């Protein structure tokens, strides 16, 4: 009984991974109709599975965290914040269900633009400041590495800023050179190395020897 359950718990999932990946990989090398179809079915399942989990699983974990945080720290503020979150969930879902056109209705789009899209854009704007302050800390010419980082960073920044293109026209070809020559050299090496690592991961997983998945209980 014990052995049986161990088989179902550990061996079968490993087999599923190997089999699925071979089915998906095969059509890239040989052209067999059945394999192509199976590969398409598997691809469509991935989308359905992620959609099914997306409908509620995240909400469960979020609720857990919110509830536990309130239990630890019973303040009105915590309660207000939790209520805000759920109010916005209900508002959006409510609009999507009740308004004609669902997510394409003007009411939903209004909220989508003003909250989701707007804050999303602001988050990226925020990053300007985090990058600026981290560069202020690290782009100090105190070593060869930091100097090359600063050189790559500052020259290409200046190349992109219109006023410097006018003031220092040579900055444009220099910036392009940084981008197209040393940058390409370095990033190609890094890309090849990472691709090799990824390939090894893939081969090992198909082989059924990947440990990061196997013992997950």
């Amino acid at each position, binding site marked *: 009984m014990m052995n049986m359950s161990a088989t179902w718990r550990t061996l079968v999932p490993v087999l599923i991974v190997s089999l699925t990946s071979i089915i998906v990989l095969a059509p890239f090398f040989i052209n067999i109709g059945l394999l192509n179809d199976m590969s398409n079915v598997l691809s*469509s399942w991935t989308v359905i599975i992620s*959609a099914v989990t997306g409908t509620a699983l995240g909400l469960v974990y979020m609720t857990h965290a919110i509830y536990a945080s309130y239990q630890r720290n019973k303040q009105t503020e915590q309660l207000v914040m939790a209520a805000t979150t759920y109010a916005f969930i209900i508002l959006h879902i409510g609009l999507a269900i009740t308004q004609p056109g669902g997510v394409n209705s003007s009411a939903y789009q209004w909220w989508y633009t003003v909250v989701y899209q707007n804050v999303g854009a602001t988050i990226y704007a925020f990053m300007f400041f985090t990058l600026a302050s981290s560069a202020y800390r690290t782009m100090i010419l105190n070593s060869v590495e930091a100097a090359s980082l600063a050189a790559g960073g500052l020259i290409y920044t200046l190349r992109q800023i219109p006023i410097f293109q006018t003031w220092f026209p040579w900055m444009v070809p220099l910036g392009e050179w940084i981008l197209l020559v040393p940058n390409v050299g370095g990033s190609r090496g890094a890309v090849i190395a990472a691709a090799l690592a990824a390939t090894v991961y893939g081969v090992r997983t198909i082989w059924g020897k990947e440990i990061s998945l196997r013992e997950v209980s």
Partner: protein
Amino acid sequence: MADLLMGLVGTFFIVATLSVLWKDNIVFRFGQAAVMGAATAHYMIMSATSIQSMVLSQMQIIPILGLILGLLMYTRLFTKISWVSKYPSSILVGVGIGVMLAGTIKGQILQQVGMTLGDIQTALFTTGDAMAILNSVIIFVGVVTSLVYFLFTIEHKGTVGLIAKVGRVFLMISLGANFSGELVWYQTQMIGRLMFIIQELLVPLGLA
């Protein structure tokens, strides 16, 4: 009126988000709570729409099997049967590995090598000018030295250490270029938000 409301609410969220740059405060926390709700809801709606269009509207056997596999994911929440969730997860990972292997080797290894050599060839036989040849050689050196930096079985000492150091310089220049690409992009986003405030709030109020 509706326009002005959009400007007001929108500006509020912009300020709330950026205010954490100053320090953690209640306006930021309120904004965060609201956005978390909005984003979760949006994801749920989008997922439900996909299920509707891919499964429920057709009611064919294969999509329904997918739906069942998806529901198996929820067994994770129950300790006794949580292992069942490994089945659908395994399918996802398997598809990922297959797709990855198919693309990675050719596109990211062989072609990158090919392009590096191709640059030299073009420079030597087609373009023929000294600058192009020099550039292609620099790229070649960059690729080789940065790959040496990523060798893990050889300690970085002596000649290997020196080569790895050169590789690191190439890597750092590349990182710097990536940094500045992003910096200027984010600045554009900031300008975009300022334009939003001007167009949606200040213009309706007659201030700009």
